């Protein structure tokens, strides 16, 4: 049973001040100079937007940065000297995470601790406490309820705040959440305001549910049987293969590892974000590319998120945040695609007709 508490707006502000004063990094959705909302380090809760639109980029970059140094090397004749990067995982508290973003990091935890335990990912995960704020229901691109989540989903959060009159109903969900409350005990009052929070939660859920009601099990069944279905022939016509969808996606986690020389003798090994939407992603050294057109690459994206990941890890690799839809310059619409796939009978490719994408 999670602990229910209440924190006023001013108490949350004081809590943030105390964190910053103690040297903890404070991160939340804040506006850039050009008006973009992004998760970034803030010095004050006043900079952080606790509700509204999802930030343009997700929270994943705080656990898997777009680029990071793995090691440096030095090579002279036969000698090679390798120095691992001195990673320091400083304590970080995220305030105002959107529940879809918190759920995403919890989903990605699975693959990061699979055949290989990713120390960099978990170093940062362990050092981070996530305080989410329940979302008001998002916009026309949101579909979290269709993938088993909700605007007030607790998955991946250490504390979930739900806006109520004068402050927030707080659900303390994990040990890290408890530790945060203990360290700032004076800021919280016992009991919570579950009743008052209910109306907000119900309204938000209803709003998202209206966007898409698809059955993930049906979609998965179609994907598992429909690898050669004619729908894939035309699925990605408008797609540019630009990969912006994957880069803003909170759950896409593929990376590339490169060695970049700093001089003749020295160099740096880095890992950088990569995406299955890029033609080069599967290009073999022989010149053969098994995913030689964008239709195959989109199929891969759908398969990975809605069939392969669930089969291997028991979770859908999509939180319905809608960023891929908002960002797509070609008008690709995952919500629409899921709706379409969910209506197709599994394993009956001959009956399908290619409509105009």
């Amino acid at each position: 049973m999670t602990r229910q508490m209440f924190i006023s707006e001013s108490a949350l502000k004081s809590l943030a001040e105390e964190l910053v004063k103690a040297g903890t990094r404070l991160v939340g959705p804040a506006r850039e100079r050009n008006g973009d909302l992004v998760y970034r380090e803030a010095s004050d809760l006043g900079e952080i937007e606790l509700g509204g639109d999802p930030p343009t980029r997700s929270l994943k970059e705080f656990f898997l940065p777009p680029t990071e140094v793995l090691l440096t090397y030095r090579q002279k004749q036969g000698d090679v000297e390798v120095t691992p990067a001195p990673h320091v995982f400083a304590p970080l508290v995220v305030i105002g995470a959107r529940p879809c973003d918190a759920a995403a990091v919890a989903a990605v935890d699975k693959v990061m601790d699979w055949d290989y335990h990713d120390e960099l990912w978990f170093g940062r995960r362990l050092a981070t406490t996530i305080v989410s704020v329940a979302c008001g229901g998002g916009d026309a691109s949101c579909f979290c309820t269709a993938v088993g989540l909700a605007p007030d989903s607790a998955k991946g959060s250490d504390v979930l705040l739900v806006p109520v009159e004068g402050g927030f109903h707080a659900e303390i969900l994990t040990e890290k959440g408890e530790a945060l409350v203990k360290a700032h005990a004076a800021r919280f009052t016992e009991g919570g305001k579950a009743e008052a929070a209910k109306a907000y939660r119900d309204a938000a859920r209803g709003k998202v549910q209206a966007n898409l009601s698809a059955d993930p099990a049906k979609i998965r069944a179609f994907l598992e049987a429909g690898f050669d279905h004619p729908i894939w022939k035309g699925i990605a016509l408008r797609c540019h293969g630009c990969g912006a969808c994957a880069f803003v996606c909170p759950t896409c986690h593929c990376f590339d590892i490169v060695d970049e020389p700093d001089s003749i003798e020295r160099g740096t090994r880095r890992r950088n974000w990569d995406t299955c939407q890029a033609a080069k992603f599967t290009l073999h050294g022989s010149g053969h590319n098994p995913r030689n057109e964008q239709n195959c690459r989109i199929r891969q994206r759908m398969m990975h998120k809605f069939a392969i990941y669930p089969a291997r890890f028991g979770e859908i690799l999509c939180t319905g945040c809608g960023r891929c839809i908002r960002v797509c310059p070609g008008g690709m619409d995952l919500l629409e695609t899921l709706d379409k796939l969910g209506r197709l009978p599994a394993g009956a490719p001959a009956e399908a007709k290619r409509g105009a994408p």
Partner: protein
Amino acid sequence: MQELRELAKKLLAEGAVKVVVGYAEGRQGVRPIFAATPEDADKLIFDPRCVQNLATYLSPRRAHVAALGKLAVVVKGCDAMAAAGMIREAQRKRDDFVLIGVRCGGVLADPRASAAVTEATVAARCPGCEVREPKIVDHLLGPLPPAPPGASALDARIAELDAMTPEERFAFWTSELAKCVRCNACREICPMCFCVRCVCDKSQPQWIESSPHARGNLAWHMTRALHQAGRCVGCGECERACPVGIPLSLLNRKVARVVAERFDYVVSDDPEKPAPIGTYRLEDDQEFIR
């Protein structure tokens, strides 16, 4: 609108083309449609929300589109310039595709917007446009709307940047480029980025570091801007595609202006006019070679 739909249906019925690439209403705003049937053709529209440069689908890199067969593409002036660029640079032959030109009065910045074209809502690239009636096209449809209102916000911003000291300007671009995550959306959507193998993908030797750090980002965007010199059609799709909001149009327009001043060349929809990047002229300024 009806004129466009009827023409599309005629081209499809006659077998002149397999697919008409045009604009259609989507769930959220206007987006491209690949119309292969009369029913699809009835969905075609053209209005100021049609911001996308559809000529990009003619790029030889798009195997999934090329597989459809011969295309007709609905083009505004800026899109027609891209099609002409592909012909000029020997990527496609003029007979490979049909161009359906639409007379244009400027488009909105965002295909999801619903406002009319005003000084406040018009795409930054549109004011001052000189190709509102593309000449290279096979068909030209619609009445000519009034010219896009106002002056270009891009020109004003470039003037501000020109007035900066080199240090200030470098600081501006450093901070903008720091946001780049190297997704390559700017490259992939660009009709003039048609190389099958991009210089930034080469790893032996690696000319451009692929990491999104200051050095790699600067090398990539400098290289791209210079490759676009005298080639960029100014459609602004790179900037629209950028998921982190880098003002790439500023860079491209500045370079285009330098090319106009130094080489007396402005990109047009005339594929016969040779571009400076592939031309040697004795009268070109040589003063930088000392």
